């Protein structure tokens, strides 16, 4: 597995755990978590500067080996997403962008149609586009046609830690979609991430479950190990399940007809 490299968005990535940087209690804690996980891809958001509080620059706390993918959170339609993506690139963030277009404030579910539009527009501008989306096959096919670098279907609502509640649909995406499938949102425990990788997902993106753990650095590393484990299992050929039992010790009659 040492040469199991993910070729994505014009880059090669060894660590298939992408990490979001929101909600950490502070940047030092975040920094530790990213280091502990050996993160290679991290997401950031873009916001208006609040000049009252001279907050520190988050980029200074992201380890050098990490590649930063800005998201377009805050966008409510394709145009806003495009505008945010351009600002982020102007800010030096490179050409990857995670599209987030959300109108729904309760479940933070993505707007697949506006997300698709933004993907089309940004891919044409040369961005490597990673759309966060509802797990829908017909939309995912259009994302491929639009030139997306990957699709990022949700596991469950952002920050809910509810796990992979859309497993059935994600499994179909993995089978049918030829670009990487990256489960994003809702993964609450390392076993959720491991499960996604076993299904054949290319990567997962985790933020809340790490950031709000009691020990974020420990949890980051746990997720990282679980992602490796799930990937390795996928590559090692997971055996089928069976309805009945099948002995792991020989069943031949020990002592059965003995004295």
């Amino acid at each position: 597995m040492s040469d199991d490299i993910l070729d994505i968005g014009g880059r090669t990535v060894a660590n298939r755990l992408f990490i979001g940087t929101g909600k950490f209690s502070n940047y030092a804690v975040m920094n530790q978590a990213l280091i502990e996980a050996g993160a290679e891809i991290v997401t950031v958001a873009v916001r208006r500067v609040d000049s009252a509080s001279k907050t520190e620059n988050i980029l200074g706390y992201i380890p050098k080996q990490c590649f930063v993918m800005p998201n377009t959170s805050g966008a409510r339609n394709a145009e806003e997403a495009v505008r945010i993506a351009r600002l982020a690139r102007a800010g030096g963030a490179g050409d990857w962008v995670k599209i987030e277009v959300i109108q729904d404030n309760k479940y933070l579910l993505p707007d697949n149609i506006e997300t698709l539009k933004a993907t089309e527009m940004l891919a044409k501008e040369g961005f490597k586009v990673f759309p966060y989306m509802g797990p829908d096959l017909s939309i995912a096919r259009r994302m491929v046609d639009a030139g997306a670098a990957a699709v990022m279907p949700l596991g469950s609502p952002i920050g809910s830690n509810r796990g992979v509640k859309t497993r059935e649909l994600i499994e179909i995406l993995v089978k049918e979609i030829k670009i990487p499938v990256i489960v994003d949102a809702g993964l609450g425990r390392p076993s959720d991430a491991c499960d996604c990788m076993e299904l054949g997902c290319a990567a997962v993106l985790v933020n809340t479950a790490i950031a709000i753990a009691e020990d974020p650095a420990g949890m980051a590393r746990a997720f990282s190990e679980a992602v490796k484990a799930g990937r390795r299992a996928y590559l090692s050929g997971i055996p089928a399940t069976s309805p009945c039992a099948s002995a792991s010790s020989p069943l031949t009659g020990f002592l059965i007809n003995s004295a």
Partner: protein
Amino acid sequence: MKIRINGKEENLDRPKNLADLIRAKGLVPEHVVVEYNLKIILAGEWAGVALKENDSIEIISFVGGG
């Protein structure tokens, strides 16, 4: 001179151009991106963009996000 900065109207006299503005706000140029009337202006060109009445400016930076 009334200028809209990050959605709020401000009354500014002193800063003559974008470079002045960023300096006046105490911001680190490397940490922010400036959108001037919906057009992104790179830091090297800030000094050449003179502010005028009713300009709309967005000054943004990166923060934590998932």
